[in-house]
């Protein structure tokens, strides 16, 4: 496949692996922020090709993992309301809320549907004027423009039976939260390429300066990731701390302006709670006043949720790169993809699921 195969070639990968080995002189810890990057690393066995000096830790960039449990509970509550059609991307369905997941709600008779785009949910609303259609607006900067566009169109069409349940989060505040955390050990970041395709990378420049930390905007194929690692290591070895762009075939410094405009039309920055991490100031999006009528929480008059979460799951530490998934006592024992204790075991982008699916070889040999 064009634009993919050339970034998966064995020769290019081996050459980069050799270059990294030649560049590195001492141990470095690098975080890949996005869950999609984590999965490529595990799925292609990329860690086998890195020198032992380099430790990759896995970041909080999995939208499924960081969506707070209260919002899952609200989604389940809406899905079980008579007459509601609850639409979501597929991987949110298995995420456990405090008592059930959306798949459980579906099994109990809730009308839960997998869609590939919020615009599909919008079409459903047009086709079912007698029913309330709700879309679960989950994700980082990457998914925000399509969700904003759906509401923009809904407003123009005067659709009164379409709302979204907003769970949008932003990457730069999460990187700062990680850098501010006690015991933090990340020395460089591979920033998420897809997020930067939309948002650009100007927001990362003050972070790189303030914390003196290299940030490399990186793609998602093995060659991208190795090149990102090499660029980060080169900066670390020479004492530089800049924002560099490995993913220049998709990312421009200023990002995608029309996408940013539609997001700004519909959303404004707000505080957000991250599952497993807690509230981070100015780390998410909520609907602007003019679009508040499309907020599912208001339409369905949902009570503010709060729920007890127990202490067995260390997903908060995993999402900040402080622990690796297999360092959790419940990993693979009490917590598996069939019966996940925490969201990172569910999503195809979750670090725990990636370790469970692709990485158990090491543990099988223990």
């Amino acid at each position, binding site marked *: 496949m064009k634009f993919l195969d050339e970034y998966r*070639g064995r020769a290019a*990968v081996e050459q980069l692996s050799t270059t990294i080995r030649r560049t590195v002189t001492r141990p470095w810890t690098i975080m890949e922020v996005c869950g999609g990057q984590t999965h490529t690393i595990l799925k*292609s066995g990329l860690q086998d090709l890195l020198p032992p000096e380099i430790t990759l830790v896995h970041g909080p960039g999995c939208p499924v993992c960081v969506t707070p*449990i209260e919002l899952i509970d609200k989604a389940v509550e809406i899905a079980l309301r008579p007459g509601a059609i609850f639409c979501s991307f597929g991987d949110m369905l298995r995420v456990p809320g405090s*008592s059930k997941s959306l*798949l459980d709600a579906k*099994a109990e008779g809730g009308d839960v549907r997998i869609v590939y785009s919020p615009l599909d949910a919008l079409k459903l609303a047009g086709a079912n004027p007698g029913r309330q259609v709700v879309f679960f607006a989950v994700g980082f900067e990457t998914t925000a423009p399509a969700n904003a566009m759906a509401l923009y169109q809904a407003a123009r069409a005067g659709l009164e039976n379409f709302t979204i349940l907003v769970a949008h989060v932003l990457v730069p505040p999460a990187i700062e939260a990680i850098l501010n955390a006690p015991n933090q050990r990340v020395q460089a970041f591979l920033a998420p390429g897809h997020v930067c395709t939309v948002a650009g990378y100007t927001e990362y420049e003050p972070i790189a300066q303030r914390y003196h930390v290299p940030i490399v905007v990186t793609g998602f194929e093995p060659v991208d990731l190795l090149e990102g690692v090499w660029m980060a290591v080169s900066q670390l070895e020479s004492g530089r701390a800049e924002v560099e762009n490995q993913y220049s075939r998709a990312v421009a410094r200023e990002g995608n302006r029309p996408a940013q405009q539609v997001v700004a039309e519909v959303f404004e920055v707000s505080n957000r709670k991250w599952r497993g991490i807690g509230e981070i100031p100015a780390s998410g999006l909520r609907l602007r006043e003019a679009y508040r009528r499309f907020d599912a929480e208001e339409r369905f008059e949902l009570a503010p949720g709060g729920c007890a979460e127990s202490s*067995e799951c260390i997903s908060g530490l995993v999402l900040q790169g402080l622990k690796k998934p297999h360092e959790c006592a419940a990993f693979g024992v009490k917590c598996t993809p069939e019966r996940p204790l925490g969201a990172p075991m569910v999503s195809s982008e979750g670090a725990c699921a990636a370790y469970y699916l*692709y990485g158990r070889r090491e543990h099988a040999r223990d």
Partner: protein
Amino acid sequence: MREIDLTCPVPLTAGDRILLAHGGGGKLTNQLIERVFLPAFSNPALEARHDGAVLSAGGCRMAFTTDAYVVRPIVFPGGNIGDLAVNGTVNDLAMCGARPLYLSAAFILEEGLPIATLREVVESMRKAADAAGVDIVTGDTKVVDRGAADQMFITTAGVGVIDEDRAIGPQSVQAGDAVIVSGDLGAHGIAVLSVREGLEFEAPVESDTAPLWTPVEALFQAGIEVHCLRDLTRGGLASALNEIASARGVRIALEEAAIPVREVVKAACEILGLDPLYVANEGRFCAFVPARDAGRAVDVLRSLPVTRGAALVGRVAGDETGIVVLESRIGGTRVVDMLSGEQLPRIC
């Protein structure tokens, strides 16, 4: 400096209802078999847990199998529910090393179904039966209220005869065996998904649905010592190999670059966030044969139209138990696990 609040999400999941994933062919399906069906029906033929039961009666060894077909939409590029219902059962018999002979067919029809639709499906079944050399010799029809079924469900059962005394199944798999797949993977699953979800690709993807006794028989006739056969339906190659690896307690090592997947299927999987190793096929199987027979087995299969894309994709190593590993294109290795539920399309 702000302390990060480390709340940890440990929910209680009820797990007391059937989820769609219980029918996905992965771990939940296996749990259902182990916890509900096996304890109730326990007997040696069932406990072999092969695609069909191998039985002896009146001095004759035969294979017996059944399968229920629910697919939405019932017509898709390259086939319909009728083809599937015949080919699927024929193939389950073939995977036991049995020559398929007779099928039954039971129809559950939804009130309001156009008879023309039923005719179209039945006509496909006749053609598929002719192509596979089987007769549909008995059947049943029930009609349920509108909404109680999705257009139509079909259940077929089949019997076949095992001509020679061959032990085909996971128990015969040996360290050193070659693993062969009979053609490119994932076309059926993507064909159905593309219609269901209204996805269009530059080249239409057609289901691979096909009867597989002819290539299996060709392997036997060529004198190849076939150790195990498995069709790659629900859960795809990954699930089939995991079942065999865990039943036999061996390590199966695959080579990613050798696994045939058509470009358009690869592209669809990339877009949807699916892994072709887990996507369903309806006309593909894997064969375990001794390494010395591997080249010849591939040649035999490639000489037949239905298996012209056959390829050697891996081998059995005895040094680790019940695990499937894959050497990636770039030379890394990873575990290929059994799917825990359905593959869910991802967010971004």
